[in-house]
């Protein structure tokens, strides 16, 4: 049995505002699962229901085989880290970290020892006497993490903990969070709207949209095999266009006057069925780089140098597509306006569920 089970949980605010719809998830002990999605998708509401700050309208939450659905938050034994740090301004760093231990009526010697341990864990020894306002944002969030972990909770919940920090600190702190989570072996749920954060940190990612779970999988699965149009468009850059099935038996598709072979199963589809075709930019390459089954004629519209990657924008029919290639000083790139042939493997051609509308090309990175 999983360590945390969220079974058929729905949350409705007011009369008819559905925040979370029929949410089901099982989290194993020691696993870090991210809830990823845009604002208003229900990820924070779900986390708050696990924390006990919101009660599900229907459904059940089990932790360690115990039904905690209606248990008050102060009895759930979960540590929580908030986006806004939420350190108590009137207390020192040491008092903040030791707050939960004092509530639990632990002896002062034990509290002091634990506070020192936690300060070492977050690489801030000697900061115990400072007040929160004397710390940087990154330091405050590390103290908040230490405070949440001081009681050795069964579970750690992190609600967009890095959103208020600048990019460089965000990257270093997320690595630190992951290291601490792995070291302690604590089960954790991490809420974020940042796909890079979710993909780099998590054992599994739950992509959410409109209160519902779109896809659950490892970061590798989520990125490489998106199952829905939303996941494909939200996670990473994606070329997506509406096409149709040309030959189900030979797994052949047509779009913009071109044909494509796919590795996807088309046996349940008919010739002429509309489908949403998706290809990641890095799965496309110029045909000279290797023989591949899909050759597509295009016109080079723009080339953007992004450091380690060169992004080429091409025109196929009336649609624009991106192609990413690793930067190579000896790479001969075509000129703007050149006709070119690009290619991709059969496995790179994905078919998304819920076809019917084109996904607009993402803005230039």
């Amino acid at each position, binding site marked *: 049995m999983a360590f945390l089970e969220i079974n058929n949980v729905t949350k409705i605010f007011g009369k008819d505002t559905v925040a979370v719809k029929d949410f089901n998830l099982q989290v194993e002990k020691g696993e870090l699962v991210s809830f990823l999605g845009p604002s208003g998708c229900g990820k924070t509401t779900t986390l708050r229901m696990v*924390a*006990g*700050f919101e009660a599900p309208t229907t459904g059940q939450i089990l932790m360690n085989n115990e039904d905690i659905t209606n248990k*008050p*938050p*102060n*009895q*759930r034994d*979960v*540590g*929580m880290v*908030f*986006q*806004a*740090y*939420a*350190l*108590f*301004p*009137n*207390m020192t760093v040491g008092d903040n970290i030791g*707050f*939960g231990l004092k*509530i*639990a009526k632990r002896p002062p010697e034990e509290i002091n020892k634990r506070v020192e341990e936690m300060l070492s864990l977050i690489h801030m020894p000697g900061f115990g006497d400072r*007040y*929160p*306002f004397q710390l*940087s*944002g990154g330091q*405050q969030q590390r103290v*908040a993490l230490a*405070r*949440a972990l001081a*009681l050795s909770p069964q579970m750690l*919940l992190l609600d967009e903990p890095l959103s*208020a920090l600048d990019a460089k600190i965000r990257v270093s702190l997320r690595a630190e969070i992951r290291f601490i989570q792995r070291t302690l072996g604590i089960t954790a749920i991490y809420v974020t709207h940042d796909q890079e954060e979710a993909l780099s940190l998590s054992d599994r990612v739950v992509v959410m949209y409109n209160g519902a779970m779109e896809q659950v999988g490892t970061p590798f699965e989520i990125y490489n095999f998106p199952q829905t149009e939303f996941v494909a468009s939200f996670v990473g850059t994606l070329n997506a266009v509406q096409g149709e099935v040309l030959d189900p038996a030979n797994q052949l598709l047509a779009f913009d006057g071109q044909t494509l072979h796919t590795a996807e199963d088309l046996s349940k589809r008919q010739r002429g069925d509309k489908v949403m075709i998706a290809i990641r930019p890095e799965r496309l390459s110029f045909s000279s780089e290797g023989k591949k089954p899909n050759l597509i004629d295009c016109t080079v519209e723009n080339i953007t140098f992004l450091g380690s990657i060169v992004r080429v924008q091409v025109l196929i029919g009336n649609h624009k597509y991106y192609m990413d290639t690793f930067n190579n000083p000896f790479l001969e790139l075509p000129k703007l306006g050149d006709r070119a042939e690009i290619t991709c493997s059969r496995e790179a051609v994905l078919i998304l569920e819920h076809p019917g509308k084109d996904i607009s090309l993402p803005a230039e990175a």
Partner: protein
Amino acid sequence: MRDRPPIAPTATVKAIVETPVKTWKRVRKFNLWSWIILGIGLIYFFLPLLATFEFSLRAIKGRYSLEAYRIAFSDPAFFRSFGLSMLWAILTIIITLLLVLPTAYWVHLRLPRLRPAVEFVTLMPFVVPAVVLVFGFIRMYGRYTFMVSIPILLIAGYIVLSLPYMFRAVDAGLRAIDVRTLTEAAQSLGASWPTIIFRVIFPNLRVAILSGVFLTFAIVMGEFTFANLLVWPAFGPYMELLGAKEAYAPQALAVVSFLLTWGSIGLLARIGRGAPGQGQIAGAR
């Protein structure tokens, strides 16, 4: 690494470096105007007070003396009225705090939609004049002997009078901290409601609460209408009574009451400055 020729300062750099006096003069001129404005303000506030103080020293013809202060302080009614007003002020403060703090906290945390209604209720003394309120009290509760034999109606009136000041002070304090997140953080660490309120929320409202406390104190100490119409020997009616029969002693009392109020404000500033973390607003920086 190649040697570089020394860089000669450009004309602009030279001009900036060589004109510190000009910049200093400009700053000083600006400061002078600030001092003039401050001086006008101080004269406006202090001149009447100085005049009152000077007048209070003229009780003996031909020379300055503290005779008016001696007369004022030698009257047992002064100490009685002052002591009673102070006692009622303290009772008012305690009851108002018990009423306002949980209400304001709960409105912030759980019932933000009720804020306009609560704000309207606290504005009562600005909408209903004190004289109307006190006659309403007398008409409604005057028939109950126990209510007129103890200063319950007086304190109730004082509470209504102090509501807008106390509520706004506490409300401003609550707005400055992230009440909901702090509450939830404490809850997730196992804290019960009393612990959250007394160890997390209230300590971060210390300055706000003190502002409300001293405003309430000042209002009650100088209040006249309620005490006079409900016939309680408070400090306000005493000063009025003294003014009717004495010339210099009421001026001495006016100076003393000014000093008391300023003393309270000074105390507030001192306590507020000494509160660690009070300047920090919880949340992202």
